[in-house]
Structures are given as structure tokens and as C-alpha cells.
């Protein structure tokens, strides 16, 4: 009964799900395969993964730990070259990392030798100083770090470091953000606050976001669409549209239906 409620349909190999709201495809990935060779063994991590993401869309890649969803994100970001398949962004093949698309690591990605200002200004080296300072001030405000301009990352809490990394990414005005379990190292309360912050920023800036997580609740709270990946070698198991407007009531019937549907899809029991 609950199964029926899942709005998505399994993605077939060749046609991704294009949303009606966002007809323009920002990203198209076709037939991505990734095979690693290690100590004479070959490990197939991604097996014919296809993905399509619309302009301004917030997509979560969800799957069990070690399933290859991070590998997929690294392929999309251009840090890894896939064994087969191609990623197109704005119709152009991805050949490497690009400042128009910023990858956000867990909060450990901030540069510890730079202050908050220095980190946010890191990617702005091409701008004249006045403009750079304006942007830095703007993003310090946006992520709620005023008063910490001269602070070093080791003087900040985990949540503040994470916001700093998001600010550093946004400051270069990218069209896309790739977030790889960005809140994984935070405590559960901070994580909840950070999700709200991210949605607020996403609504203000309307970037296309691909967000990797293994946390079902997180995916259902954040995304327009949840792409469920199988265990390794990862395939796309199912795509689920989250048709609840923001702010989402996480005790509403629809939320629980969608969440439980994904729970069952992944094959998890509801009792601990």
C-alpha cells in the first residue's frame, strides 16, 4: 500500500526523468561506469548509472555507505574520469573541475591556514579588491558568521566551519553545488539547523544542488527529488519525487509516507 505511494518510477537506462517544473536539463549523465583496479582485483563501483538534473533543482543521491554515490559525485565534478560514459553540463562534456561548479566536502575542506575572510575570498583572486571585500562581507552575513571575519577555522565549531565552506563555495557564484555528505560529521541538532540554513540559502540563490547522503530523513527533508542508489556496484534503483512544499512538516502524513517508502525500497526494517 505504501509502495504505491512512491511517486517516482524506476529510471530506465536511457531516459532520465525530466521534471515538468524545470524543463531545461542542467546536467545529463549517461551510462557512467567506474571500475577501480586495486591489488590485481577489479572493483566495479558504478554500473551504468544515468542521471538528469534540471536547472535550479535540488537532487539527493541516497544510498548505503560505500555504495559509490560519492564516486558518482566526484565523476560529475570532474575529479574522476569514468571508465565509460559521459557527463554533460549545459550540453558540454565535463573534462575536469570548474569554478562554475563547486564541490563542498565535509567541513574539513576549509583551509585551516586562512581566516574566515581568507577562506571566503579564496576563489575570488580574479576580482579587484573592493569587489572582493564586498562579496566576502555579503557571504559572511548570508551564512551568519559576522564577528568571526578574522577567526581561524580551529577557533570555530563544526557547524560554523561547514557554513564557512558553503560560503566559500557560493562566493564564486557557481551555477551548481555538489555536496558530499556535508553534514555527516555534525551532531544531530546542528545537522537539523544546517539543513534549514541550506534550504534558506538555496531559496535565496537558486543554485542547482546535488547532495549526497546516506540519511533517508535528510534526503526527504531537503530534496525535490531523491535518487536511490543500490549497493555496490551502484545502479539507480528508483527516483522519488518529494512533492511537499518547503518548509516541510516532518510529522506530516505525506512526509512519513515518502520516508517509509524509501525505507522499504532500501530494505530496512522499521524496528530497531
Amino acid at each position, binding site marked *: 500500500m505504501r509502495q504505491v505511494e512512491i511517486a517516482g518510477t524506476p529510471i530506465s537506462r536511457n531516459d532520465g526523468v525530466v521534471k515538468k517544473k524545470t524543463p531545461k536539463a542542467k546536467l545529463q549523465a549517461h551510462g557512467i561506469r567506474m571500475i577501480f583496479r586495486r591489488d590485481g582485483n577489479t572493483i566495479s563501483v558504478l554500473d551504468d548509472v544515468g542521471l538528469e538534473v534540471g536547472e535550479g533543482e535540488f537532487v539527493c543521491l541516497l544510498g548505503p555507505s560505500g555504495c559509490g554515490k560519492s564516486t558518482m559525485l566526484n565523476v560529475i565534478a570532474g575529479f574522476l574520469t569514468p571508465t565509460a560514459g559521459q557527463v554533460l553540463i549545459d550540453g558540454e562534456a565535463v573534462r575536469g573541475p570548474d569554478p562554475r561548479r563547486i564541490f563542498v566536502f565535509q567541513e*574539513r575542506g576549509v583551509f585551516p591556514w586562512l581566516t574566515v575572510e581568507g577562506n571566503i575570498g579564496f576563489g575570488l583572486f580574479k576580482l579587484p579588491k573592493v569587489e572582493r571585500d564586498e562579496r566576502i562581507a555579503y557571504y559572511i552575513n548570508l551564512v551568519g558568521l559576522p564577528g568571526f571575519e578574522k577567526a581561524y577555522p580551529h577557533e570555530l565549531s563544526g557547524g560554523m566551519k561547514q557554513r564557512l565552506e558553503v560560503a566559500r563555495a557560493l562566493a564564486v557564484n557557481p551555477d551548481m553545488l555538489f555536496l558530499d555528505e556535508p553534514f555527516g560529521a555534525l551532531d544531530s541538532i546542528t545537522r537539523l539547523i544546517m539543513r534549514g540554513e541550506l534550504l534558506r540559502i538555496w531559496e535565496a540563490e537558486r543554485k542547482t544542488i546535488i547532495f549526497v547522503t546516506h540519511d533517508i530523513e535528510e534526503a526527504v527533508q531537503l530534496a525535490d527529488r531523491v535518487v536511490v542508489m543500490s549497493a555496490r556496484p551502484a545502479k539507480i534503483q528508483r527516483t522519488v519525487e518529494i512533492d511537499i512544499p518547503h518548509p516541510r512538516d516532518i510529522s506530516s502524513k505525506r512526509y512519513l509516507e515518502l520516508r517509509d517508502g524509501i525505507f522499504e525500497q532500501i530494505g530496512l526494517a522499521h524496528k530497531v
Partner: protein
Amino acid sequence: MSNGLVLRLWEEWFWPVLAAGIFISFWYFSVKWSGSKVFPSPLDVGAGISELATKGLLWRYVLDSLRRVGEGYVSAIALAIPSGLLLGWYPVAAAVVNPTIQILRPISPIAWIPVSIVLFGVGDMAAVFLIFLASFFPVAVATMNGVRNVPSMYRRAGRNFGLSPSKLIARVVFPAALPQIIVGLRIALGVAWLVVVAAEMIAVDSGLGYLVIDSRNSGKRYDLVVAAMILIGLAGLGLDSAFRRIEKMKSVRWGFRNEF
């Protein structure tokens, strides 16, 4: 810092001074009760130091030694940091050069004294060359390892923001490796200071090492020998504490803490 014992401000000075005082009195009474005619008491050494000061030798010798260390050390850094960056950045180059480095590295700079004299003659350059050798390997190896240990996340982030390889080295790899480089620099400075004393005993006629050997050879002035030893120790302490200040700078302090 970690054992929970916190010294109050006056105690920070009081206890170390007391410990040194106990050591000096032990020295004083050992000389007195053993009735040694050769070994100087702390009072003799104090007199020796003021004799050196009035002759104008004290500052001249200290500064001569510091200058030699400075010349050898700075030129070693100027070469060792770029080579370390290159070797750390290109693993293939490191694989080619590393065995040679690992053979040269354990050779004490003292063993190079004859070679140095053959190359540069008896004089300042020979001593400076020894300091150079002593400083080069610790700095080059620390830089190379520092670069290798830079988390790939930092490199990826740097590339993501569109940095060219040279900018990536200057703005990401170098600052990320800097805490490890500083450890190498500090070790190198310590070794350089050890080596300058030895070098001055052989190659030159000024400096603290020369003072040690000259005071012994010309009239067995053991008060001046020990005076020179104490000056060597004090100057070494000065160099090291100057370095500790660098480690406390905020842009590198993250690398000297367990958590960050």
C-alpha cells in the same frame, strides 16, 4: 598543557630559575669540595665572561658564529624548500632522487670537514658550507613529506576554484605543508648550531667554537672554555625560542594541535 598542571605567572619564572640555581650551586660545591685546580667554578666562569666582554670578544664571537649559521642556513633553505616542493609534487622525481638523499642524509656534517676544506680551503666558506649541508637535508625532506601529506581534499578544493598548478602550489600546497616544513626548519637550525661549533674548531679563527678550542690550546683557560660552552647554550636557546614564536602564529598553529 595536557597534564593539568598549570603554573602561575610568577611560578613560570621562579621554578626554572630555582632549578638552574640548584644546578649552579651543585657545580660550585663540587669544584670546591673536590679541590679541583683545573675545573673552573661558576665564579671563575662569570669572571671569564666579563673578561671576554671587556675585551670586546664576546659579541664579536657570538655574532661571527650567528653570521656563519645565518649564511649557511638561509642559503640551504633557499634551495631546500623549492627542491622539497618539487620532489613532493612529482612522485617520480622523488623516486629517482630519494635513494641518494637517504644515503647522504645520515652522514654527519662533521664527516664532511675534510671535503669542505679541500673544496673551499681553510676559512669562512668551509664552515658555511658545512652549515649548508647540515641544514639542507632536514628541510628538504620535511618539505617533501609535508607536500606528500597534504590532504587530497585541499588540492581538489584548490583545483576546483580554478587555480593554475603554480598558484596551487603557492596558495594551497605550501601553506598546507608549512607546519611540517617549520618542524624541519627548527630541527635544521638546531643541527646547524651544533655543526657551527665543530666547524669553527677547525676551519676559522673566530666564533664560539674557536673560543672553546683556542682557550684550551693557548694556556688551558678552562674558565673561558666553560664560558664559551654557556654562551653556545644561551645562543642556541635564543634561536630555538625565536622559532617557537613562529610556531605560535595563527596561520600555522592548526598544524601543531591534535585537534582542529
